[in-house]
């Protein structure tokens, strides 16, 4: 606990020393505006998560701890169902390894950016999720007088805070929803669908979407729902690099 508090203090001290409070406030405001859709979605989805956990017999403290230290929407939801059904250790761990494997790819885009946050790097790494990844990707322009890496830090921070808040709320409210009501966890799927629709609408090059979609559906059909994720990720990455090389060769 003490170590955590000290680390948090270091993160904020670093900010204050570098430059003045008014810029920090501006950065926080910019980040807050950008993050607000995610904050609301996250609150709602993590509420759903908290409820599912509570339905399985794991209250708000559990949801809070998982949201603080594991912090992945999709896998937390899966873990909740594992807790409820009493899955085997090996199953849980293997699922974790494979589901979180996609996080490996997210970091690639932000290796340089996050390094600029200095001592906050571990926190930035820890809080890179599907949605924060999508959000960070969608911000193409940062105001000139603010530091990009600080804005990114606040985005990460606000996102996680709303996720934790939602999980706790859902956990607390868990007694109010009968456990026969299923399907609350669909909220996360709905969130992903909206992100893809937005991305598709805004992108000029639809190739990555098509490649990803065709690969994953193909492997889902051929390998089954348990085994298709990692091959899809690897083959998609390979094809993307291949197409990129071909197109570069033509230019």
């Amino acid at each position, binding site marked *: 606990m003490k170590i955590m508090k000290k680390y948090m203090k270091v993160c904020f001290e670093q900010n204050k020393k570098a430059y003045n409070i008014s810029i920090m406030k501006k950065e926080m405001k910019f980040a807050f505006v950008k993050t607000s859709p995610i904050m609301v979605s996250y609150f709602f989805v993590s509420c759903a998560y908290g409820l599912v956990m509570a339905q399985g017999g794991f209250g708000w403290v*559990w949801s809070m701890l998982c949201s603080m230290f*594991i912090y992945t929407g999709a896998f937390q939801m899966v*873990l909740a169902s594992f807790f409820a059904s009493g899955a085997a250790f090996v199953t849980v*761990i293997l699922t974790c390894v494979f589901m*979180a494997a996609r996080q490996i790819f997210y970091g690639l885009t932000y290796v340089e950016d996050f390094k600029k946050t200095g001592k906050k790097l571990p926190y930035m790494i820890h809080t890179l999720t599907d949605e924060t990844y999508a959000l960070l990707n969608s911000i193409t322009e940062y105001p000139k007088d603010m530091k990009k890496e600080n804005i990114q830090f606040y985005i990460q921070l606000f996102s996680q805070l709303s996720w934790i808040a939602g999980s706790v709320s859902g956990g607390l409210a868990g007694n109010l929803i009968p456990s026969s009501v299923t399907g609350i966890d669909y909220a996360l799927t709905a969130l992903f*669908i909206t992100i893809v629709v937005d991305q598709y609408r805004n992108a000029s090059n639809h190739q990555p979407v098509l490649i990803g979609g065709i690969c994953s559906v193909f492997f889902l059909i051929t390998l089954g729902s348990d085994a298709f994720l990692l091959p899809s990720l690897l083959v998609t990455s390979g094809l993307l690099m291949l197409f990129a090389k071909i197109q570069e060769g033509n230019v």
Partner: protein
Amino acid sequence: MNHTEAFILVVICACIVFFERSLPWIVFGKKEMPKIVKRLSDLLPASLMVILVVYSLRSLTTSDFHDSFALISASIFTAVFHYYQKNQILSVISGTAVYIILLNAF
């Protein structure tokens, strides 16, 4: 599953997730990232989200008609609804509501 086992799992999973998230920095942190990997990292976001949606819908291959119907209908609804009205929160809430209703009411 009792609470002790669950706690151990939480700790293990937290470490696994953090490790996997850190891998790009472990591998490319000190060295220069090859240009082709950089290109990949720019293209990946879009593909990844689609793969993630397929992943969320993966139960379609194994579940029965009733569940699949609820899932597909709710997803098509969410996608179309979001395409036209653009408010993410509204789409997520309505899509989830449609799914819960279709799943539980019929």
